[in-house]
């Protein structure tokens, strides 16, 4: 294009389209509202790319750069990240399920059955919640194996490994407490097995059953306890420990590397 030509005068159809595209782009991304949300445009210089990671509330869990080997899929297989992603999906689908579910012995089963048939996408939400819950348990084990076999628990990451073990337990207990909520035969008797196991604790078996399950058999007390643990207490704890977990990764100098 000759530079001498007057700007703004399209010579052919393609240029017209080009100008139109620019206008649309301008209207969408340079308007008052958009710019009030996103303070800068797409980060296309290394400096801006680091800034966006450092200043964005969601991205700032990351460092701004990391070692080349750590972005190789085969180093982490994204397992920790995917575990976290499962947790997010579970939170979203779980909140949706909560709209329709009442944790009482009279209603629980009926609510789940109604959710499956009467609520649009209710069945899909329940299925998603169920399968991602299983996936999270599997992924957290795989993540632990990845960390172990890469020797990433070694100094200075000892404590973060312990935080991880706590997260493993929380994941299992979260999954187990959720198991009771549909209040069907599968739920009741699976949790009864767990109830028996808890009751076999030496000396404190009875106390454990009373405190955790609210009685010597599975009934309304167990249901409301499991519900409360499942939808608020344990997710909150897990979120806190995950925050510590992620923060520690950075405090410990990023992910482990050979000396």
């Amino acid at each position, binding site marked *: 294009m000759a530079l001498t030509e007057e700007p703004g005068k399209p010579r052919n159809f393609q240029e017209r389209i080009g100008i139109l595209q620019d206008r649309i782009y301008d209207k969408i991304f340079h308007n008052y509202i958009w710019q009030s949300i996103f303070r800068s445009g797409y980060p296309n210089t290394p400096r801006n790319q680091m800034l966006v990671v450092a200043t964005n509330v969601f991205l700032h869990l990351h460092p701004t750069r990391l070692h080349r080997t750590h972005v190789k899929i085969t180093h982490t297989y994204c397992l920790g990240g995917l575990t976290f992603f499962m947790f997010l999906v579970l939170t979203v689908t779980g909140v949706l399920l909560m709209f329709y579910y009442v944790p009482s012995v009279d209603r629980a089963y009926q609510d789940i059955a109604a959710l499956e048939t009467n609520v649009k996408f209710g069945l899909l939400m329940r*299925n998603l919640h169920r399968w991602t819950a299983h*996936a999270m348990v599997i992924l957290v084990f795989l993540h632990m194996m990845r960390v172990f076999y890469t020797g990433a628990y070694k100094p200075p990451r000892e404590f973060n490994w312990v935080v991880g*073990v706590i997260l493993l337990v929380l994941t299992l207990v979260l999954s*187990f407490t959720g198991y009771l909520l549909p209040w069907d035969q599968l739920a009741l008797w699976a949790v009864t097995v767990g109830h028996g196991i808890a009751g076999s604790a030496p000396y404190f078996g009875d106390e454990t059953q009373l405190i955790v399950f609210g009685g010597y058999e599975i009934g309304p007390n167990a249901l409301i306890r499991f519900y409360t643990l499942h939808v608020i207490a344990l997710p909150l704890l897990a979120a806190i420990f995950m925050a510590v977990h992620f923060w520690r990764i950075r405090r410990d100098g990023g992910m482990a590397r050979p000396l």
Partner: protein
Amino acid sequence: MAIEAPPAPGRAPGAARPRPKREREEEVLVWPDLVFVEFISAVLFTITFVILSVLINAPLLNRANTDVTPNPSKAPWYFLNLQELLLHMDKAWAGVLLPTIALGFFAAIPYLDRSREAQGIWFGTKYSVRITIITAIYAIFICGLLVAFDAGDRTKFEYATRWIPSCDNSAQHVGVPCLRDEAGAKHLGIVTTKDFSKRLQFSIPWPDALGTDDGHLDWPRDLDRIPVPFNNVDCCYGSLHLWKGMNLNIPDIMANQVIPLSTIAFFTVLIIYVLFRLGWVRTRRDVFITMFTGVLTAYLVLSLVGSFFRGQGQALIWPWEIKVDPG
């Protein structure tokens, strides 16, 4: 997946930087390199799970009914291994103590193995790959063997101990160890570990001064109610009242605690020793690789046995024979 990092601005050779040059040049930016990978894997997982959820429905059986017990009833798969252990040993050990010890062991690994070698790369020590593979195969084999041993009648493992004679029920004291058979039933060898306390019988001459009244110490008859010291003192409150009136059942402790636990200890030490003698286990890290692999494999194998090989009454059967009686 790693994309070449764009040259950072102002990276003139020799310019002062916070970290050595080599280090920096090996680094990439989180945006776009990592964020991209994370985004793609999140999208792939979302798609996979949406498809899965469209195709397969979560189970919903009949409404819970405490009067109707399905047979078998099973814990969720990640606890089925504990349910499986319950069949083989004392319930406190299987359900609470062993899992607690395993978790404590996991948490303690970094404090026991403090060397900084071999971190940040997969299988950093010289022989760790083969240690892992051999241990996993070994653990699968041993778990299978022990499960099979404990269902001796179904797996025919009891044949191996058929040579132990049947007990003569009329004899006062049986000198030679023997196995009691149910009246009228044919002679069986050791069917489960519990037979050590339930069916095994023998006696040795024993001075009455040491607690017997007929000159013989009979297993299990004379040993199943050994009072613990001070079990008649009225003192304590709370859980400690359990001490009052407590008697030890030695044959039961033997069959449900000593034998299963020493079996676990024995096979753990054995594999570590063998790998050590082979020269493969050379550092603490290697010892922990062996133990970690063993524990995780056992966890998985026992879950699989519980899921696919346990039918009504927790009998050991083939997966295609499992029929659930809804109660």
